[in-house]
């Protein structure tokens, strides 16, 4: 989304803005699932469903940012202006990503430090690591396919008055 936002701001690529608008609900959905499942799992492991822990709080901010992107875009009748402001908000919001990644190292709270490392050895047992990696790949493909479906309908609705859309449909 950040790359698309940059492309839209610098080169005014319309498609980049369409992709951001299509990806934002999917990002919000997957972040919500992460927060929800983490809360449920927090009850047996930490004894609480919610704590203002650095990782949880920064992820909640990410969820709010996604909602902010969608709300901001929906609040303008001028769609070109909405695209531009949405892209700026995405660029601002991307600052939160390294904070989420490093939150478990910078603040000593409920979450343990990272269990999976690309460069060093992972602390997670291989019996869980490999199914986890396979699941991450599977989820990635599923989200890509959902993104393609979502962007297809959004591009069609935005470009509905263009000749190529009439020819396509």
């Amino acid at each position, binding site marked *: 989304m950040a790359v698309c936002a940059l492309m839209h701001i610098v080169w005014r690529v319309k498609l980049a803005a369409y992709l951001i608008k299509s990806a934002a*609900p*999917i990002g919000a*959905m997957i972040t*919500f*699932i992460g927060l*929800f*499942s983490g809360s*449920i*799992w927090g*009850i*047996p492991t930490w004894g609480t469903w919610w704590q203002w822990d650095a990782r949880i709080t920064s992820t909640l901010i990410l969820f709010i940012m996604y909602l902010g992107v969608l709300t901001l875009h929906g609040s303008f009748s001028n769609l070109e202006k909405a695209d531009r402001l949405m892209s700026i908000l995405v660029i601002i919001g991307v600052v939160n990503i390294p904070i989420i990644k490093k939150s478990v190292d910078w603040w000593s709270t409920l979450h343990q430090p990272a269990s999976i490392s690309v460069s060093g050895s992972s602390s997670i047992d291989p019996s869980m690591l490999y199914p986890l990696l396979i699941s991450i790949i599977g989820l990635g493909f*599923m989200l890509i396919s*959902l993104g393609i*479906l*979502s962007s*297809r*309908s959004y591009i*069609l*609705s935005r470009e*509905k008055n263009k000749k190529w*859309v*009439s020819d396509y*449909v």
Partner: protein
Amino acid sequence: MFNSEFKNFNEILDMSGHGIYVWSVYLVGISIIAISFLIAKKRIKTVQRKIKLNNASS
């Protein structure tokens, strides 16, 4: 090759008392993702129908 931690289906459901947490997350997660796919597919059909109507009227 594959040693199961569980002896029967009830143990899989129960997961040593953690079943309610594990399966409720599966249920909610899969439901949300499935609904998202359905919404996305329905949107495509709706947009295509609107465009066809628009083309027919013009």
